[in-house]
């Protein structure tokens, strides 16, 4: 392309009045506010309004099967009722057991997987890509997949066990095993999440402290214990928070594997609320219990974020 010198552009510099500037700024700001409106309206319509509405509904007496409109105000009756409901209290125990056990093993396995797969070689990258598959596919599909794996008669797990002479249990049907099976599924599904976060965290650690420690002749264990681990505390708190909250809300895999059974052995809180609300249409009762769960989640979130803030402040 040849370079031709274009004639200089004639720019007419019109004098800009103060009014024009004010108008331009107003237009600018107005336009930017306008940009916010679509996203904000969706958020308010689907999350904000329902949140407030469920708070209101949780304090009235309303069962959709009996009446199409909310009944009278009952205060915190729905909340107190929940705590004398043995199935609900059982669901709390089930959920807490599930959440603590699943989170514990996910953190442990996820961290270990991150430590052995961190790196840029092709083998490690491909390994990581395969390892994240359980967390990217639909949780309901994970459920159906493990229903077949865990099937007592025709499942792969018990077949494998029978080859070495072990009679496997009815993983999803046996009351004393079902919750453990759900924990195994969740650990299989979500350890990769912990892994990818630790991989990212490990690869973005600053190099200087490690060089310095190596120069000072620190042993490998000392480096790991006194440099790597402390630097990973903030991200650990964050992953712990995400996993605790998400395991407390587990629904999809329960729905597609045990459906809360056998008996009420795997009724998690989310599943219980789902049943109350969308199956029996005990709207107020479901709303009240869902608020209890919400308060628990937000408490965890706030607590962990404050904890993380303190750790970060201490480290800097």
């Amino acid at each position, binding site marked *: 392309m040849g370079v031709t010198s274009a004639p200089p552009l004639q720019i007419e510099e019109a004098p800009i009045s103060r009014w024009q500037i004010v108008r331009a700024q107003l237009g600018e700001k107005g336009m930017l506010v306008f940009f916010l409106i679509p996203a904000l309206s969706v958020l308010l319509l689907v999350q904000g309004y329902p949140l407030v509405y469920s708070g209101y509904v949780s304090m009235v007496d309303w069962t959709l099967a009996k009446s199409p409109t909310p009944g009278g105000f009952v205060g915190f009756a729905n909340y107190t009722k929940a705590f004398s409901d043995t199935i609900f209290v059982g669901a709390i125990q089930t959920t807490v057991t599930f959440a603590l056990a699943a989170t514990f093993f996910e953190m442990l396995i996820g961290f270990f997987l991150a430590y052995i797969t961190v790196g840029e070689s092709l083998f490690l990258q491909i390994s990581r890509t395969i390892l994240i598959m359980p967390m990217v596919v639909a949780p*309901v599909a994970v459920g159906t997949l493990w229903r077949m794996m865990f099937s007592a008669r025709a499942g792969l797990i018990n077949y494998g066990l029978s080859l070495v002479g072990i009679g496997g249990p009815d993983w999803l049907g046996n009351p004393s095993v079902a919750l453990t099976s759900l924990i195994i599924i969740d650990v299989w599904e979500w350890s990769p999440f912990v892994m990818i976060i630790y991989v*990212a965290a490990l690869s973005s650690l600053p190099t200087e402290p490690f060089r310095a420690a190596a120069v000072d002749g620190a042993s490998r264990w000392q480096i790991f214990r006194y440099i790597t681990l402390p630097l990973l505390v903030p*991200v650990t708190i964050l992953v712990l928070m995400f996993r605790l909250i998400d395991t407390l809300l587990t629904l999809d895999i329960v729905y597609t594997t045990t459906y809360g059974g056998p008996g009420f052995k795997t009724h998690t809180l989310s599943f219980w609320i789902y049943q109350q609300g969308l199956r029996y249409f005990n709207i107020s009762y479901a709303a009240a219990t*869902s608020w209890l769960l919400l308060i628990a989640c937000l408490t965890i979130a706030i607590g962990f974020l404050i904890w993380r803030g303190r750790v970060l402040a201490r480290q800097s």
Partner: protein
Amino acid sequence: MYDERTSSLLNILNAATRVLVILLSLIVVSVPFVYLFLNSVKPPQEFLTVPPTIIPTHLTFEHYAAIFDPNQDTRSYFINSVVITVSTTIISVLIGSLAAFSLSRLKLPFRLSSLIAFAFLIVRFYPKITTTLPYFILMKDLHLLDTQIAVIVAHVSLTLPFVVWLMLTFFDELPRELDQSAMLDGCGPWQRFIQVILPLTTPALLTAAILTALLSWNEFLMASSVASSNAKTLPIAVSSFITDKGVQWGPMSAMSSVIVVPVMLFALFAQRYLVRGLTLGAVKE
């Protein structure tokens, strides 16, 4: 390459053990998937034999044929899933990045911008079951139950936090001089957004789009509450196998495979973007 940051523990495990452990974990992850795919091409009579047939004696695609049979509902569930995922992705990325742009450029009084950004973030932290019930009632009152629109709007609300926060971090990093020089050229906010800002953040947009598509395609709770038959998506359809259809492993596996395979291919080719989206917020890059 020797890296002091990770070498300490790695040398404790020697290289061979390490590769062995990685291979073992790859097997643990892959076997259930392989089993699923094998089941989806297994003839029906081979499902309940004892001991179970692991490798089918011959391949059959009848379960897939049943899913894509024009007279079957599953075909429409598949179409619903595609329509809802595509619409959600387009809408969420568009209005989410617009909002993020606005939040990063707008100076509102009382730190309102930060408050609004925080309002988006908080959606990530509370149980969706709390908002699902009232949303169900709202859609019932608006006569929108069992429509694709009800599911799309729900999915947009669930994915917006991810889009807004992802784009916000990127927009905040873009130098303001870009805006200012475009402003001097007479570009309004809309022109600047489309012509200047967006082209510079294509990787971020892609990350947001991939994450949104994934979340929408997989979502169960909200879709199951508002879509009981006509607007059913694949995850809802596959979940109903446990309740009303007894043991139908063939169709169940085929449908699960249809849900799982596109996502796996997606993950394979877009791994970088996906991982960046999934680790969003936890680690600063």
